[in-house]
């Protein structure tokens, strides 16, 4: 074979490579076919897969079924400890706080600092311009007052612990999301941009997304009924309706929480605020970058659920880390503003309370729930009283990477 002919054959082979590599089915075919394959599986196979998904979930979070069953029993019996909360979430809103115990415990790693250097929390930008990763101030409603605020501290912060757990989860894959959806009896419809998957049953659709970097938010699911869901008859009111809705779909929280209900007309927002157990302290709320508690939210129209959003159930492990002292926390909080109390034209917020909280630090393959100290107080401007919050990272700075 002559050299020019060899070169021509090589060129043809390259064209063939390109032709085969660029010949692909039309967009959407891949997901359509996958959905068809899922739908055509025998009912027994789907049931088996759902069962395997459930068993997998039990392996990952050992206390989930007990927690779900316990939660359901409480709903059925109508027994629960109702504690009226004085803290509302919005103007004119009714608010109820309810404590429920759930026993899921993360796997603990024995050696302190076992996760290595930790990334620092990036709290929401402070109106006063304090820069992350330092303490952050936020007001409620912060949009109503964006000016500078001086700070004083009159409260008492008892931090009897010198270490606190840091919790870590591994970023879920599409397979994790698919297993979650399969356990709900939902089949994959598509993988929209920004989501791990979009799924559907005959009754509701489910979307699952991974960790959001900014503002940090853990992997979440959103359930939206497709057809108008039936009213749920639960004696305990909106919280129990929400819990029944979640429990029917194996979505009842496996963690400790308190509940709040925000009522606006026919719509009730049921908020199950997540807590983490801290030995020697008690339970610490999960808060966002503005210091606001969050967890699962179920929206109801009357007694009919219209949507539910919550964190994906993931395997979580924990490791103890040294934390700063109460004095250091107070100094950091007060240093978060550059104005002094008494400066002309600048209101002074009096911080009166402080508590240990957890905030999410998104960090790629693994993300962390890290402890912080949340200071709260109030200030008044032109007759309007505002709530001021200041978040201070609690991990000893020598254990932080940035």
């Amino acid at each position, binding site marked *: 074979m002559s050299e020019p002919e060899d070169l021509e054959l090589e060129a043809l082979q390259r064209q063939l490579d*390109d032709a085969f590599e660029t*010949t692909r089915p*039309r967009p959407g*075919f891949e997901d359509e076919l996958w959905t068809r394959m899922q739908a055509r599986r025998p009912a027994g196979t789907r049931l088996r897969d759902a069962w395997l998904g459930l068993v997998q979930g039990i392996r990952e979070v050992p206390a989930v079924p007990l927690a779900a069953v316990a939660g359901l029993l409480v709903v059925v019996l109508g027994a629960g400890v109702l504690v009226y909360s004085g803290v509302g979430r919005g103007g004119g809103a009714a608010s109820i706080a309810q404590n429920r115990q759930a026993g899921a415990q993360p796997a603990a790693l024995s050696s302190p600092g076992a996760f290595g250097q930790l990334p620092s929390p990036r709290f929401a930008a402070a109106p006063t311009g304090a820069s992350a990763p330092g303490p952050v101030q936020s007001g409620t409603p912060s949009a109503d007052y964006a000016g500078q605020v001086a700070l004083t501290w009159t409260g008492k912060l008892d931090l009897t612990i010198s270490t606190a757990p840091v919790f870590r989860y591994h970023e879920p894959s599409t397979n994790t999301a698919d297993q979650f959806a399969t356990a709900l009896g939902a089949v994959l419809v598509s993988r929209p941009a920004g989501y791990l998957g979009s799924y559907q049953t005959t009754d509701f659709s489910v979307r699952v997304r991974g960790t959001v970097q900014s503002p940090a938010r853990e992997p979440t699911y959103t359930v939206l009924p497709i057809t108008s869901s039936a009213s749920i008859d639960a004696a305990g009111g909106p919280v129990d309706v929400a819990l029944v809705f979640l429990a029917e779909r194996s979505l009842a929280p496996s963690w400790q929480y308190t509940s709040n209900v925000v009522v606006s007309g026919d719509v009730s927002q049921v908020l199950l605020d997540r807590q983490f157990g801290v030995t020697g302290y008690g339970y610490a709320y999960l808060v966002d970058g503005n210091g606001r508690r969050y967890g699962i939210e179920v929206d109801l129209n009357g007694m009919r659920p219209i949507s539910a959003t919550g964190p994906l159930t993931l395997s979580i492990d924990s490791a103890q880390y040294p934390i700063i002292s109460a004095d250091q926390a107070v100094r950091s909080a007060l240093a978060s503003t550059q104005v002094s109390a008494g400066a002309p034209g600048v209101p002074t917020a009096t911080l009166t309370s402080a508590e240990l909280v957890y905030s999410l630090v998104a960090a790629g393959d693994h993300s962390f729930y890290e402890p912080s100290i949340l200071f709260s107080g109030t200030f008044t401007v032109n007759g309007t009283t505002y709530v001021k919050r200041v978040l201070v990272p609690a991990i000893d700075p020598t254990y932080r990477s940035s």
Partner: protein
Amino acid sequence: MVADRPPFEDLYRAYLGRIYAYVRAQVGTSADAEDITAQVFMNAYQAYARFEARNTTPAAWLFRIARNATLDHFRAHGRRERLRRTIEHQPVAEEDPSGVAEERIQYRALLARVAQLPERQREAISLRHSGLSFEEVGVLLKCTEDAAKMLYHRAVKALKEAVEEETA
């Protein structure tokens, strides 16, 4: 599930495009290619529990199913229909709404010419350019690795002559 067996969805996502391209080079239309590709993965999904990674690679296993499904398709539609589809297959007649993918049209023309080669030559080119090794091609075509290489090189040469004849 066997430890060395990946989740089926991983296989599906990894090989769907390659299987489709392989099938597309055998049949005349993208609609047929989609139908056969769907059948391939339906069959594979059902059979995956019996797949033994020790005996074969996932690629070879899937392409064997694809080859059988394509042959079934030809048998079901008859050789006359197959010939008609192959002869009628014109690259520009395919849907390409943008009309700008000239390169894609050239590739389709090339695949159409592949589809007109004798069966074994066509399969040797399609399997080889779908990413299979000569050893895997040989196993699928029931010949040795060396014979598969020979068959492939003859096929490429035949394809080159066909292209030259058409452009002459």
